[in-house]
């Protein structure tokens, strides 16, 4: 595709539920990043993939958060037992490599009621 796409654009769920957020990077980009942006704040790094492996997951807030990228392209961010504090916009970005320019998707707005 022409750019990074994310689905769904909006997700409303209830506290305690499980959610999956999907990111489709730009074709040919080997690096993929997830960020979280809370209202009025700048994005915060969550996890970075180089190919299929998570090269750095130090930004994941706790073990309820997990992300995969099984074929080195599409990635899924998974959140278990959602809490109201998880409400935020989840942003995905991709780049040709770690040292290259990142391009961001439109984000998924997650609301936990």
């Amino acid at each position, binding site marked *: 595709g022409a750019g990074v796409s994310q689905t769904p654009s909006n997700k409303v769920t209830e506290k305690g539920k499980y959610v999956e957020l999907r990111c489709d990077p730009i074709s040919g980009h080997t690096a993929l990043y997830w960020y979280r942006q809370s209202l009025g704040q700048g994005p*915060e*790094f969550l996890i970075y993939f180089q190919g299929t492996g998570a090269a*750095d997951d130090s930004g994941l807030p706790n073990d309820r958060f997990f992300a995969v990228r099984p074929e080195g392209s599409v990635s899924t961010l998974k959140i278990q037992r959602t809490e109201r504090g998880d409400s935020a916009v989840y*942003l995905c970005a991709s780049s040709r490599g770690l040292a*290259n*320019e*990142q391009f*961001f998707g*439109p984000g998924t707005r997650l609301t936990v009621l």
Partner: protein
Amino acid sequence: GIQVEQSPPDLILQEGANSTLRCNFSDSVNNLQWFHQNPWGQLINLFYIPSGTKQNGRLSATTVATERYSLLYISSSQTTDSGVYFCVVRSGDTGNQFYFGTGTSLTVIP
């Protein structure tokens, strides 16, 4: 991690005015980008500029890596320039994370 401070935090301009946004970072970096987050939340690439100077239309940017700062210049501002401007850096010395700056919120009034 790297501390990334941007100034000013807020800026209001009359349409047509010029401005300079600054990004200071606490450690050496090998990757620096400027983004504009529009009112709909989309992050738009402005510059990939780990060092040197670049220009694109009314915008230009300079990074002085040895002194750990970058500047974004906006000339002849337009209302569509409104939004939040972020500087994002990465240091190869302290892991693979990218660090967003504190942001500058720009409002251009007609």
